[in-house]
């Protein structure tokens, strides 16, 4: 019974982790940027959905869409005003760009986090779930929302797969992650690809954020841990590898759920962290890393 419960809970949590991390890895794969304001985007989406529903009474669906929209806007802002200026700056030496992007996105994340805390306090907020009720799966009472979360996450991941592998824009994005110069030689404007990738990323992070808000609830304190967990999943799976991130998300999700059920919720994150250190020792490039 407990085993089945772990299986079901772990699946939903892992799907959420996967969706959260996949955008993060996409950005890294295409433009080599590690966006440390990732958690802030997710929380902003959830809080926006919560506020739109609570203050403007727009309803659950419109609230969720609004949340995703806010995340999309923030992702584009991050690219336009934080990442791109640093990539183009004459005053920063090439080998230092990475650390400047890390520092600047980190600060940007703190700015968003503090703004949320100022406007809507740092209390935990739970977005009203779109679907309610409980169903029994083989005798395990499972909230419908949990199933909904897993379905939407996998739907979004499937859509992303379709977009990248089957559409023209997606193929251009894929090509840019392999060889940016080659793409420009084919007459494709690289600038548009980056904007497209950041837009996709914003939507993915937004969906993940809103779902997280419905599933577990968020507060402005979740910003740091969310960024850290996306970062660890992505590194565990191998930076830039989408399928690696999916596997890593499930490894981490199940490890955490197992620990929470069998040992104690207080130790939830420890085994995953130790695993990460072990992988660093043995296989620094991650599970499916290319380098």
């Amino acid at each position: 019974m407990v085993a089945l419960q772990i299986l079901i809970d772990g699946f939903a949590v892992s799907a959420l982790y996967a969706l959260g991390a996949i955008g993060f890895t996409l950005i890294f794969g295409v433009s080599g940027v590690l966006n440390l304001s990732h958690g802030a985007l997710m929380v902003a989406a959830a809080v926006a959905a919560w506020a739109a529903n609570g203050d403007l009474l727009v309803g659950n669906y419109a609230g969720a869409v609004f949340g995703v929209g806010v995340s999309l806007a923030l992702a584009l802002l991050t690219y336009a005003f934080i990442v791109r200026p640093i990539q183009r700056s004459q005053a920063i030496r090439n080998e230092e760009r990475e650390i400047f992007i890390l520092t600047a996105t980190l600060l940007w994340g703190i700015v968003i986090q503090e703004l949320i805390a100022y406007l809507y306090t740092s209390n935990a907020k739970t977005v009203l779930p779109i679907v309610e009720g409980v169903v029994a799966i083989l005798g395990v009472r499972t909230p419908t929302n949990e199933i909904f979360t897993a379905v939407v996450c996998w739907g979004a991941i499937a859509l992303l797969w379709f977009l990248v592998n089957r559409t023209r824009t997606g193929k251009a994005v894929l090509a840019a992650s392999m060889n940016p110069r080659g793409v420009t030689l084919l007459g494709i404007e690289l600038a548009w690809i980056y904007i497209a990738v950041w837009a996709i990323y914003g939507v993915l992070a937004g969906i993940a954020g809103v779902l997280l808000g419905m599933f577990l609830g968020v507060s402005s304190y979740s910003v740091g841990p969310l960024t850290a967990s996306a970062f660890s999943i992505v590194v565990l799976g191998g930076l830039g590898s989408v399928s690696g991130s999916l596997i890593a998300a499930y490894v981490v999700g199940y490890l955490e759920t197992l620990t929470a059920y069998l040992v104690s919720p207080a130790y939830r994150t420890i085994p995953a962290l130790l695993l990460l250190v072990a992988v660093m020792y043995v296989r620094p490039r991650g599970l499916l890393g290319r380098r």
Partner: protein
Amino acid sequence: MCARAGSLGDGRPMPRLSVREMSFAAIIVVALAAALPFFVSDYVLGVLTPGFYIAVFAMAWDLLFGFANEVNFGPTFLIGLGAYAAGIIDNRLGWAIWLCVAAGTAAAVAGGLVLALPALRVRGPYFGLTTLVAVLILSNLIVVFADLTGGEIGLTVPDVISIDAHANYWIALGFMSASGAILFALSRSPMGLILQASGQDAVQAGALGFNVTKHKLAAFTISAFFSGLAGALYVFYLGAASVGTLVDVTVGVQVIIAAVLGGRRTILGAALGAIFLIGATEALRPLGELATLVVSAVALLIVLFFPNGLIALIARVGGRA
């Protein structure tokens, strides 16, 4: 000064300050700071004293980042190890303060070595993540072993260095000045140059016959030494240790912001940035919750528009005068 000068945002070369000029300016600033307790209230001293300890954290971090080009996301791993080891020993065994501080420093150096050996095999973001994970593990362990560490409530330390605000201020100032002088001298020594070279191009530095790993390990150890020492002393100033003030990732972020804000690869800039950050946060306290927002936004603007930091701004103004 270092072999290459950076350039300012508008493309003009950064005015160079010689070692002599910088030392001279630093001595004047320290002398003025030492006289401060006779003119200002204990409240101002109470703001500046923690600032001096955080300045040491930032300078130790800059040695690793600015020179060895390694992003250590976990400065608080080393700080926390030093602080908690010293605090626990004082709490449990009641050793003399200086023995506790020495033990704390030793713990930080040992922990630094354990972390550095695997961490230095990996590069860039992987190194950063390994150090970040170390902090998360440490803060989890502190909560798990709450009997020993006080867990989320914090650890109370029975002894303090002094209860006199003036004495505490001078001790902190003296410690910061001494650490700053040593770290600055190291950064300008042949070792600092080799670190810079290996940070920029590890392969070429290795081809020139320098043992890159050995030098990076040495930098990590020195950074751990000063972080641990500062952490241990800070505990005996605060009279308590808690995850929120010493280990949490946000504390580490503050150290990093301080160093980048002040001007990386300068050591002294890191101290400047830390004191500015603490002072600004305190000055903006009337804004309430907005204080952190404003400080982070200002830091972001400085990173974006003046990537060489406060010290370059000051050098430019000084160079013009």
